[in-house]
């Protein structure tokens, strides 16, 4: 049984908007970071699905899934982003013992 492409895209979209909503409504910096991860992985899912579909439709080799390579890039970026993001949160926490992003507004113009 093969799952249709639309299902993958639907799940991806749902995950993405859950993540986006989390980024918008949550105050805890760590949770916001987690929601960003969720958005990234939602796009990963879409990428994998489209890649596989392109292979099936395909001109050329049906096993060619070059689109999935993007997913690897996204992993790397996500890992780096988390490392930097957590470091920033840690530094901000040392400066002022809070992870509530609403209280961190020194850059207010």
């Amino acid at each position: 049984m093969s799952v249709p492409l639309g299902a993958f895209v639907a799940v991806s979209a749902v995950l993405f908007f859950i993540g986006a909503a989390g980024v918008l409504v949550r105050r805890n910096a760590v949770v916001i970071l987690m929601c960003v991860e969720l958005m990234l992985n939602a796009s990963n899912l879409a990428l994998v699905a489209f890649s596989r579909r392109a292979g099936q439709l395909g001109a050329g080799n049906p096993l060619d899934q070059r689109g999935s390579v993007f997913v690897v890039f996204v992993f790397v970026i996500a890992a780096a982003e988390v490392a930097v993001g957590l470091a920033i949160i840690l530094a901000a926490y040392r400066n002022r013992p809070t992870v509530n992003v609403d209280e961190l507004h020194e850059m207010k113009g």
Partner: protein
Amino acid sequence: MIQNVWLIPAFPLAAFLANALFGRRWLRRWTGPLASAAIAASAIIAIGIFLEVRGGIERTTVPLYTFMSVGDFRVNVSALVDPLSSTMLLVVTVISFLIHVYAIGYMAHDRGFWRFFSWFPLFVFAMLVLVLADNYLVMFVGWEGVGLCSYLLIGFWFERPEPAGAAKKAFVMNRIGDWGFTIGMITTFLVFGSMNFSDVFERVAKDPPAQGVLSLICLAFFLGATGKSAQLPLHSWLPDAMEGPTPVSALIHAATMVTAGVYLVARSTPLYEAAGPVLASVGWVGALTAIFAATIALVQFDIKRVMAYSTVSQLGYMFLALGVGAPIAAMFHLATHAFFKALLFLGSGSVIHGVGDVQDMRRMGGLRSKMPLTYWTMVIAGGALAALPPLAGFWSKDEILGSAFKGGYPILWAVGVFTGGLTAFYITRAIWLTFHGQPRDHHLFEHAHESPRVMTWPLVALAAGSALVGFIGFPPDHGFIHAFLAPAVETGHGPAVEPGTDWTAFLTLAAISTAVGVTGILFGLSMYARSRPDPAAVARAAGPYYDVLVNKYYVDELYDRRFVDVAKAFAGAAWAFDIHIIDGLVNRLGWIIKLGGGGLRRAQTGIVGNYALSIVAGLLVVMVVYGGYATGWLRR
């Protein structure tokens, strides 16, 4: 010896550098002796060079280095040693040395002692550069240096507004003269292709340019000379320069600065003689200045101001001499005047020092017993100024008047003789008011004292000079100075010198001018010693004429109204334009940007959620637009 002529300006320059760099911290009191020693060294070399030139050198150029070299245009810094410059060197260094020594005493209690003795040798250095230059450009360097130093020294007590204003006035008026010098210099270069004295004079002798061009050059240089030498109409800075310390006045009036204009014209004699009619105008300006300044000096009560107008008047005599084609007489008078005018100033300074910085002669009187040495030296200097035989002024002034008479300028001669009477009167008046009669301010009189030796010895030395220097011009027209200077200034165009002294003419003319001078003295004595006629009554009777003289012919007021106020109005308009138009535009632009920035500032809330929301909103907009295009909904 002559190869070492560069040492003469080098010593004062070294003294300036040492005192300016180390004077404040380390040298302190030693700056004065150091500067004096440097000038003394220069004076010794100058004497050596003078003797060597007397031994038969007509003209030597000692090259030092190339100042600039552009294409064919080269300006070398070289020292020109000839009778004219070696005479000037001697006068400048010797007089400056005596004034330096005197200043050690006069300035002893001033906080700016080291500063004073930094500028003082620099002044001498600039004058020596001017004298030694062998082309107009290097001369101009010295010329400007002298102007700068006069500014610094006149405004030495810059905390007070009057010296600061006087310094500014001196500088600005000199700038007008300098403008003339520059025009003359540029025209000289355009016409002759060179600024070297020797090249220019050679060309003038061989193939002179058009009369008009030559006249322009001469008039331009003469404008420069009127600025530096305080002739009409640029004379009014010199009396104001009295605001500086007295040794500065002595230096400006005797050795450096004001003699520069005379030297410039004397140096350019070949140019002036070729230019013809311009020369006569030089003489007329000189004569007018002489009588003009002498009349003002009659009624002034500030002792230094009397001396200042006297200098303007005597410089007028020098230009008169130049104008009638007697540069030797002008240089002769320059040398003798340097001695007795330095002495008059230093004597006045000694009086001012002795009575505690009072310059008004109305508060003095009877000081003869308190300061005998100052008195007697002042009397000698006054006699020399009044041209009493056999003092120095007699020989040189009579030579000028004789040249004017024999040169065919009887009116100039008459003006000169009459001015001589005025001169004798005002110097008698000044000495009488200061030293004779009853003390008019007893408090002042009680505290008056003779100056220390460091100040009186230069007075004695200058008095000896004032008495004896005249004999270098004896016998008249054929003395030592005539034989010495003749090769430097004779061009063959001037009035021919008859062989042998014309004693009849000399004695007649001398008798006339001496009689006028003695009349002036006797009239001064009867007026101030006997009150016959009473000075106050005379002043009242003269009424408006007296007021005109007291107010110096209202020249300052005229200049203020005609030039200073106009310049101020123009400057005010320029200022308003700058503030409202130029600055206004920039400010308006800045104001707009500030407003925009203020609006955008509100977007920066500092809340992360807001930023995230704007990102998402942006994403949605992109999606909608893209979707719109993709589906054709946004396409027409």
